[in-house]
């Protein structure tokens, strides 16, 4: 167990060491892949190995946190930083690492301020890993806020023309969430300093309970694209073309979902029941609304955002059911979902880049790029829930929970999921096939044809596809 404890620390510290090395490494390099990118990829791979080692040490039969590492930070008032791990957190950390790794593969030819990008990405990885491992109020809050810092910098550096407006929205919404969470956690700490899993032990007065839990609600919701909080995330998505920044920005809602999963539903007091109902209704309306908007929009970034939003809210609603039996299914499904979206975004960024640099239209662009086309089709089919990843079976279990709880609500959710998936299919066909004309199309000159992904990237994509199929066959394949 001691060994596992040090592995947990290593998961947070390795990216920080990576940050150090990346800061010191030369920007650019003799080879096609720059030094700093190599440092980034090596750091993420090292951390994945550590995570794998940690996974092997976890006792699957045991419920809850497997290990607790405590560090006394301040003696008076007593503030301890406590870390723990369970298979759910581990799956999420691994998925985030793999998504960021794919993002790094996607930026290998992007030389614009690559060092800043890798440093911020590694810093983000460290912070979000800390967040998933945090077990006490303070470390939870620190990492919850700290992960925004690299994202803020990334949007500032890599955002498009509207980046000031986006930063403004980003700041506005996240400040709101931060203030609410801070106040709620201070009040909770003032009553009793316990771990997050034991938070239900704290007894508050009627109004206090509603205020504290309401604040926690708003804090986490500010990160999730639930109406009206969806707007800042959609703005970020539409205005960022760098795949790594896009992936990191889209992992932020995961922090909100994770926060709600850790605090609710088993810990939520009864006083919150009416509010939970309101949240569920608002979530479903948001799902339907975003799915409908995604269906009409022609921008693929928005379609991916719409798909991600619908799925995040699906997982959120699954987690809010009055049972924690679905937690592992949500974890397994999230694992594939994050990887699929990251891989898709890498391909989309490649196509976008090709279309812009060669001044060609997006329609039918996949015709000329068989490797990209193959992977794109695979990922879209996996994304919409065909039996190609763990999304298929685990989503079915989540649906079963939702259908059992409230069939009307679940039917609306299914409608939204269907619409979001059809939007992705729509995009696949738009990219894959040129408009049909009766006359034969003139031959396209070589210089106006989009270039395919390189063999190396194709190999990475094939590995990703294999990983997804493995997760379908056995979501816990990595521990046998």
């Amino acid at each position, binding site marked *: 167990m001691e060994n596992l404890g040090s592995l947990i620390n290593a998961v947070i510290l390795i990216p920080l060491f990576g940050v150090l090395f990346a800061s010191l490494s030369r920007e650019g390099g003799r080879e096609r892949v720059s030094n700093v990118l190599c440092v980034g990829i090596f750091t993420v791979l090292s951390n994945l190995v550590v995570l794998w080692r940690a996974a092997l040490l976890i006792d699957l039969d045991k419920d809850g946190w497997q290990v607790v590492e405590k560090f006394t930070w301040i003696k008076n008032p007593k503030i301890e930083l406590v870390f723990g791990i369970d298979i759910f957190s581990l799956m999420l950390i691994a998925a985030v690492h793999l998504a960021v790794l794919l993002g790094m593969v996607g930026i290998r030819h992007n030389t614009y301020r690559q060092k800043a990008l890798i440093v911020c990405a590694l810093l983000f990885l460290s912070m979000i890993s800390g967040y998933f491992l945090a077990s006490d109020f303070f470390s939870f809050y620190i990492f919850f806020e700290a992960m925004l810092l690299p994202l803020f910098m990334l949007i500032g550096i890599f955002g498009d023309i509207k980046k000031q407006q986006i930063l403004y929205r980003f700041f506005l919404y996240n400040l709101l969430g931060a203030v609410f969470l801070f106040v709620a956690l201070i009040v909770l700490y003032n009553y009793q300093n316990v771990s997050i899993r034991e938070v239900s032990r704290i007894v508050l007065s009627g109004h206090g309970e509603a205020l504290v839990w309401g604040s926690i609600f708003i804090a986490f919701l500010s990160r999730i694209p639930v109406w009206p909080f969806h*707007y800042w995330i959609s703005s970020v998505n539409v205005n960022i073309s760098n795949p790594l920044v896009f992936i990191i920005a889209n992992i932020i809602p995961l922090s909100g979902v994770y926060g709600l999963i850790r605090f609710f539903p088993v810990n939520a007091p009864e006083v919150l029941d009416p509010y939970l109902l309101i949240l569920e209704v608002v979530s479903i309306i948001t799902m339907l609304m975003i799915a*409908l908007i995604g269906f009409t929009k022609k921008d693929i970034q928005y379609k991916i955002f719409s798909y991600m939003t619908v799925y995040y809210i699906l997982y959120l609603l699954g987690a809010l059911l009055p049972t924690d*039996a679905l937690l592992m*299914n949500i974890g397994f499904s999230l694992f594939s979902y994050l990887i699929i979206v990251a891989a898709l975004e890498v391909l989309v960024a490649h196509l976008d880049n090709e279309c812009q640099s060669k001044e060609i239209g997006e329609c039918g662009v996949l015709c000329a790029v068989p490797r990209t086309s193959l992977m794109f089709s695979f990922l879209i089919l996996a994304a919409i*829930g*065909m*039996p190609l990843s763990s999304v298929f*079976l685990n989503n079915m*279990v989540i649906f079963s929970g939702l259908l059992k709880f409230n069939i009307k609500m679940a039917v609306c959710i299914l409608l939204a999921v269907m619409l979001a998936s059809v939007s992705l299919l729509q995009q696949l066909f738009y990219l894959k096939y040129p408009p049909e004309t009766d006359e034969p199309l003139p031959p396209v000159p070589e210089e106006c044809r989009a270039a395919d992904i390189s063999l190396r990237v194709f190999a990475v994509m094939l590995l990703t596809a294999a990983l997804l199929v493995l997760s379908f066959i056995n979501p816990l394949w990595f521990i046998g």
Partner: protein
Amino acid sequence: MLVNLLVLILGAGLISELVPKNRLPVLWSLFSSAAVLYFIYKLSQLGMSPDIYVNYPWLKIPNLSINLEIGINSLNVCLVFVLLILALLSLMQNTFGTETAKNSLNGLILFNLLSALMLVFANNYIQMLVAVGACDVLVFSTINNVNAKKKYIYANFLADIGLVSIFAVILGHGGGLELKDLGDYSQFGHHKDFVAILLLLCIFIKSGLFLFHGTYTDIASLGFNRLNFVLFAATPLIGYLVFLKTEALLSISSYSYPLLKMFSLASVAWGVFGVLAIDHIKQKSVYFALMFWGAVYAFAAFGCRLEILDFAGFLLSAFLFGQVLMLFYTAASNETNISEMGGFIKNLKFMFVLLLVVLAAYFDVLLSLQTKNIWLTWAYILLFSLASAHVLSQILLGESRADERVQAMLKNPSPALWGPVAVAAAMLCWHFREQFLWLAAVSACWLMLFIFRPLRRLDKWYENEDLQEADYFSTAYELLIITPVKVIGRLLWLAVDFVFIERTIINSVQNALTFLIFLLRRLHSGTTLRSLLFVLFGFAVIYAVWRFGGR
């Protein structure tokens, strides 16, 4: 042994997919055919009552513990045989036909065979759903036409979501995973009408019954062998297999069977109309398939579901009839319009004999169904005879309208193409040979219809361009479903995102902040008076805390 055979098919499929698309296609096709033939041979050694059952614990995740079950017994052996024969016939046609990317198609046929077999073997609905999903992905890859692919995946994806939802409902309400326990759902289940109706709709979509046949009308642009494979050995068959596996669920709702009757009869009727009205030979084939699937479901709807052996024979004969149409198409140098054919009997005498053998097999099988439901059987025989005689009479006896090239190239296809069809038809005739007199009578009637062609006046439909190009159902879906959804989405974006959030909330907050900053700046101008004001305000706060803070 069974597992080894399945691995053999998987291996052959992988090889076909991995070898370059057009590298030694005949060799690889023969290799794939040999693998299937070996499977048939080993299976035939077990006889008609084999008993093999293998159960692998596949997956154990929270809330789901799934076993992978593989088993052949007397109940499913006929289905396994017919699946293998359909795959073999498709592979053989692919070997010597004009298909492009033969190796890839071989691989897809073999993988599809595997997924269909996994569905036949399934005893739990998770295995069934996985097999259905896998088949969809494979058929999606098999269809190599844009519009057809689009329609196919949209429709079947929706059907898959529907199927997943149904079984999610059952799982959520404590139903087990076993298919044999589905009948108990009527006792403990909830939302029974919802489950039964949704299940039926999903099956209709998969099988391409009336209202959902648009999924398959566009695949007429595929190669003929690919088309026949999709129509008879892929998704529509998967739909029917799902129906067989889940039929117990239909009895939980009083709407199920009336709905099934309505759709199946409408499918047959629309199929007949399509065969008579549409000029394109491949589309005719699609409508013949619609008639066939409609008839299969009609038997089930009227309480006389076909036995597995009968169904296997019926399916194989319908497939062979499709193959015969394909052979006429090949003989006529890929001429697609029936109206552009005619008078081919002079050059295609052998094909006419082959047609008679296949029709004899078809009628033999149909006549054996009389014991199930005599009215349905004879109605179908009549409709099929009218439609098929009308089409084939135009091709063989009609006034010749073929262009010179077609006439010059007209010849019987090679034995490699007709051989497998003839062998399979002869085997079917032999197996269902019991009602010779009835067969002679029906064949004579068919020949009369063939010669006199009573529906010849309907030929003018071929000249009606609006009718030939009409796609009523797709237009209706576009107008009734897609367009409203797009309009609502656009309105929501404009009203909620743009006007309400962007222009109202965010701009208001921004303006309020700007105003606050302006106010504080004005107050903080640095003059003595303003500083004094702030000092006084600070004292006021301290007083307030001192005065009221203790309470």
